[in-house]
């Protein structure tokens, strides 16, 4: 009797299910999606309000150019990925599967949440292309996102991704896109949802070799790749937004000189690198903290630890800056010498920002890392300082940054081996 009551109560309780979903997956999805969607909103308002572009123009442009179509789909997939992952695979929501709730009810809630995550994309395509193309574009974006989350481990997922890619590359024909995307999205979402609680068993055979510095840096990079995919894709999405902002910024303001153009592009890239890099610093420092006992026992020098923790972040920001610089130069059709200079200056800025970011994060996350105010203060300060200095002095500000990084390196005292409070002994 009691069991029947429990089933009835749970199965009829849409409100309970929605509330349970909200406190587990929903909040996580909103927390991960908001910064990116907010950035999209700012970018969209610049694009549509500032430049007079209409959603229909964007849809038409993607229809005419394969490159623009793929770039737009790629950018949106990256932007929406953290939200989709949070909806389908937040660990705190796994308990919902044990409840006596009909699977169709669960899927109704999950599907609605997935559609909500696609709302900005749906708005663009429904406004710009109408109902049919809009539905097809939403299904295609959902399919791309969920299939990416499956990591294409099974043949069915690879086939679906292949079919989706082929249809996206073909001349636009929305009924075909919808026919391919809808089942692919359903397959992807189902597979991600079912597979989410499984521990990722295979660790692969990524190369950890060489001396302590190289091996430690490789270990941090592997852990980062496995534990911080959402943060990494966020950094990528922010860089894409910086690219869009740089392109339209340069088109609209028409800088008078090369120096002004370089300053503008760098000033727009710096916030993306700082915000993207800051979200990666937490997992990076956690990875180091997990290894602290091993590093102490092996006597790994402080210098090697410092460089090893910096290397993955520096490489990430360097890669993003290079991509940004080269893509922006291509879009703006800059001459080769200016392209090289832009890529060089943005790469230098990325390396200096990585050095400053890791120091700020170490200061902010000191102790148990629960003091979020310090992180906000540190990253906010860096963001403000870097952007204002670039806006005021252009790329000459990098000299000041380099001086700061040099001073920080000089100020580094020799790191003592892990001495916990109250653990000093008299032998």
């Amino acid at each position, binding site marked *: 009797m009691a069991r029947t009551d429990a089933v009835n109560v749970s199965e009829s309780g849409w409100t309970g299910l929605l509330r349970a979903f909200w406190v587990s997956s929903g909040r996580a999805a909103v927390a991960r999606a908001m910064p990116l969607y907010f950035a999209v909103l700012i970018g969209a308002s610049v694009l549509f309000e500032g430049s007079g572009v209409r959603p229909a123009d964007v849809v038409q442009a993607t229809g005419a150019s394969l490159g623009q179509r793929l770039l737009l789909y790629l950018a949106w997939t990256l932007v929406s990925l953290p939200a989709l992952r949070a909806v389908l695979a937040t660990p705190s929501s796994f308990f919902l599967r044990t409840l006596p709730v009909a699977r169709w009810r669960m899927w109704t809630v999950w599907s609605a949440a997935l559609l909500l995550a696609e709302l900005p994309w749906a708005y663009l395509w429904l406004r710009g292309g109408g109902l049919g193309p809009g539905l097809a574009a939403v299904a295609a974006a959902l399919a791309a996102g969920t299939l990416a989350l499956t990591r294409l481990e099974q043949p069915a997922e690879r086939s679906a991704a292949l079919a989706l890619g082929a249809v996206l590359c073909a001349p636009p024909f929305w009924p075909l896109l919808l026919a391919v995307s809808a089942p692919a999205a359903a397959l992807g979402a189902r597979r991600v949802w079912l597979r989410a609680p499984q521990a*990722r068993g295979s*660790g692969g*055979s990524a190369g950890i070799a060489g001396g302590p510095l190289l091996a430690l840096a490789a270990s941090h990079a592997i852990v980062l790749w496995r534990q911080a995919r959402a943060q990494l894709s966020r950094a990528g999405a922010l860089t894409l937004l910086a690219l869009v902002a740089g392109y339209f910024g340069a088109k609209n303001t028409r800088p008078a000189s090369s120096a002004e153009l370089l300053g503008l592009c760098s000033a727009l890239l710096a916030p993306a690198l700082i915000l993207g890099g800051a979200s990666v610093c937490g997992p990076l420092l956690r990875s180091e903290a997990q290894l602290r*006992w091993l590093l102490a*026992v092996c*006597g790994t020098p402080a210098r090697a630890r410092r460089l090893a923790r910096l290397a993955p972040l520096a490489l990430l920001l360097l890669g993003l800056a290079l991509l940004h610089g080269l893509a922006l130069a291509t879009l703006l059709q800059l001459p080769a010498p200016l392209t090289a200079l832009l890529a060089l200056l943005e790469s230098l800025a990325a390396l200096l920002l990585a050095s400053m970011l890791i120091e700020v994060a170490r200061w902010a996350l000191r102790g148990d890392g629960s003091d979020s105010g310090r992180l906000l203060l540190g990253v906010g300060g860096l963001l403000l300082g870097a952007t204002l200095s670039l806006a005021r002095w252009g790329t000459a500000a990098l000299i000041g940054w380099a001086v700061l990084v040099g001073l920080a390196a000089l100020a580094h005292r020799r790191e003592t081996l*892990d001495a916990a409070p109250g653990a000093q*002994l*008299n*032998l």
Partner: protein
Amino acid sequence: MLDGLQLACAPGEVYAVLGENGAGKSTLLRVLCGMLEPERGTVLIQGHELTGGGVAARRHLGYVPDGTESLPDLSLREFVALVRSLKQLPVDAAAELELASRRERLGLEQAWHQRLATLSFGQRKRACLLAALLGDPWLLILDEPSNGLDPSGVAKVLELIAERQARDQATLLATNDLAFTRQLAAALGSALHCQRLRDGQLLLESHRITER
């Protein structure tokens, strides 16, 4: 607070530090393996000073922590490669052969490509043991070695300690598992030295182990 402790481990000796929870066993081991710096005093391994970040002393040392939750998100294979690199151990055919043999003995063949986070507590403990034995260190420090291990795992640890003792290598362990200590005493005889850590002091314990 631990104060005025003196502990000397000769070749082929096995030291068991016993004590209740919170007696300071793990803290003592963390000092002896170089994780914690003592306020006063020194730790010497094979004549090399460990305190102050000494690297030479650490080359002769292997350490297995009690808690295995603080392991990176790496596969066992990657973890072993990392420890090898950090210890700057040579990777040659002989070392590979030795590693393969130990891996098999510790029952870690299946877990070789699995991530540490997906292994059971006992498997992670064995993984830490495998990593600590890399380079065949002169001193092996084990914190609660029987904790979380099944009977076959405990038997393997006992076997390894006995083999090390026969090769004149030293082992230092901390435990509050009397059954394990008795098994160790039965396997090693007079080579086992037991001391109880109480109120920051080490007290001789050997006769009490054999009496019970």
